[in-house]
């Protein structure tokens, strides 16, 4: 085994030669990730509010959260990109299909994060705001949400890093993202170790950068508590 490790002739030049492709793919990955994060932040909040709403609305929110948390991205993206398109002629291009799938799946997680955060706000806050004469919407916007948001940030950023990683699955339907470019370059050079190591490093760096930014953000947001 060790002898093989030593005799394998590494050819890292394929990584340099592939860089223009990987760079193109990286932009697609970043675009998909950012769009999905933005949409699922909004949709997640809506779902959380629906989930905490009255009777039948709560049931819909509950079902939404349960179903979309139970699906894997790979299964869901095949369903959206091929299944729904074939049966109902709803045609997404690969990037849109990726964004739609990532948004639906992650908004379910984000809804639960928001819900936990909103419920963590002491009821007294809301009651105080209402007794000052603020309407229920004004209370939510000015009192409850700003506090809940701070509680939710670390978990939401965790979700952000999950979206970065999950986005690699969109390569399975031919979206020209970082992963797809890597697979394609591998079929060209047939150098799987070098190419996939490079890709792993790129994803790792993205995740670490986002995690680092989030810990700074978290510290800033909690400065007033110190």
């Amino acid at each position: 085994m060790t002898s093989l490790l030593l005799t394998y002739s590494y050819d890292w030049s394929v990584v340099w030669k592939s860089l223009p492709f990987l760079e193109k793919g990286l932009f697609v990955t970043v675009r998909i990730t950012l769009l999905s994060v933005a949409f699922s932040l909004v949709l997640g909040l809506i779902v959380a509010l629906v989930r905490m709403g009255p009777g039948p609305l709560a049931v819909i929110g509950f079902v939404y959260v349960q179903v979309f948390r139970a699906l894997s991205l790979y299964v869901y993206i095949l369903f959206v990109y091929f299944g729904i398109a074939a049966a109902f002629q709803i045609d997404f291009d690969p990037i849109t299909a990726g964004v739609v799938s990532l948004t639906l799946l992650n908004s379910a997680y984000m809804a639960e994060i928001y819900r936990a955060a909103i419920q963590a706000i002491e009821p007294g806050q809301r009651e105080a705001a209402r007794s000052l004469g603020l309407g229920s919407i004004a209370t939510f916007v000015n009192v409850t949400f700003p506090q809940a948001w701070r509680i939710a940030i670390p978990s939401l950023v965790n979700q952000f890093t999950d979206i970065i990683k999950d986005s690699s699955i969109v390569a399975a339907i031919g979206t020209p993202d970082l992963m797809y470019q890597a697979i394609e370059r591998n079929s060209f050079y047939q150098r799987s170790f070098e190419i996939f190591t490079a890709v792993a490093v790129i994803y790792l760096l993205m995740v670490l950068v986002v995690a680092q930014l989030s810990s700074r953000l978290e510290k800033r947001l909690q400065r007033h508590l110190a």
Partner: protein
Amino acid sequence: MSTEQEAPEAQQSQVALPNRRSVLKLGASAALGIGAYALAACETSNSSPGTTASAQSGESVLDKWLSSKTAKLGVDLTFPPIQFKDASGNPTGYQMELTIAMMQDLGVTPQWVEIPFGQLFAGLVAGKFDMMGISATILPSRALKGLFSSFPVFYESIVVLLKPGSSVTDSSQLAGKKIAVLQGSSQEFSSHQLFPNASFSPFAQLADAVNEVATGRADAVVLSEFDVDSSKSAHPDLVVLQGPPLWVDANTYLMPLGDYKLQAWVNNWLRYNATHQRLVAGWKKWLGPGLQKYKLTTYGVGPGGAPELVQGGPPAGPAPRAPATRSAVERMIPLSYAFDWRVVTDRWHLFVQGAWVDVEIAVFGFVFACVIGLLNAILRTSGVRVFSIPSFVYVQVMRGIPLYVMLLWIYFGIANILGLNFTNVQAMVIALALTGSGYTTEIFRAGLGAVDRGQLEAARSIGLSRTRTYGHVILPQTFRIVVPPLGNTFVGLLKGATICSLIAVPDMVFLANELNVTLFTPFEVFTAVAVILVVLVFFFSAVVYVLERRLRLP
């Protein structure tokens, strides 16, 4: 399952709650609504108006191309020298030269829609593109769902590459061996008939199938003669099985069913270029060097569409016949999607078996992830820097790498440099165990930290050894704390396990893809897979919930 009667009304909204089907429809309609919203929102992405086969509206794709001056063509550009991207990323190769020339003759700009080969057929049915820009083997089952040109683009001679040091000298010795193939290719279908006793591993990428043989995990790969050169230059140890090709396949463009106007034009274009020797000349240009090196027999497309021996080894028997002008099974079928739930209901047990594969993989991955995670957490909390720092780095790395990247890196990358020939199931388990261990480490760390330090001191002061303190005092309390988050991790791993079909593990998604390639029913099969996954996850979540209640301290 009585779903087939309900299928036609699947688009209608439904008011009554909450049986399982309505739950699904809710999901689907939510998906559609939000999808439309997202579509509107991502206008920057290059979405253009629906390409869904225009035969529906009575207009031919050809008319649409001529009026819009653009054509959406479905391709997989990972097959040098037939179709691939050159060093600057432009499509090239025998096939692409022809397709580009054809589009130039029409005065139309091609738009390439890239989809992995095995999914191209689902893509055609889903209206992702107007026509396939590359060729597919003419198969009777495919002709039921798509319209082939009746003139071939190329003939594909099927040959065998053997693993290094193989003793096989004749194709008859392949019975009982393990054979790697490209998923959805004609090699996959015909090999099953030719070698009924062999076992098969179909891969989404041909490079992966070849790699499987180069690492010795499979005995042979059945592939086209034009793939031999690139495979041999990447893995020089592979052995070409000498002798005549196993068989010869005709390949050509695949179009939407019923669009005979487009087909007639494509037929004529191919016939014109074949009589002008363009097809044979292209074949010589792109395949010549490789064929000379390995003495392979190959056929170009002659003036009448008949196979013409190009060069290589001795001709093997009579030259194969050209395909009939029109396949008997090609007939008009309305293009609106006909739901056929029997595809699923007839094979329900196969789907369940496939799901079981996912569960098994997830269970093994989870067990290893727990073991690694626990050990790592103990190192991390040891307070000794030599241990805790590597342990910290490990967690960051494992949580930062996508499962898909990890999987390909282990299965293909590691296999090449270490010669560690994991089976595909083992590779999936390892990938899950490694990514999972990043999470379980953090869970165990939190669990160990949550046990009051006084407990440890008390146990030590009554004379328990360090091992006993951990075994009898700390760990039992830790377990109560870690069960709920570990349960969530398991569910996460189960969902992750569904990507195993990408390295040819025969799970439920793999089955769904296989059915698509022959039966073209993406909606039914992917719905089935999604339903099974949701049910499984609900079940395991319920188990975790019950455990959590039982273990809770009074």
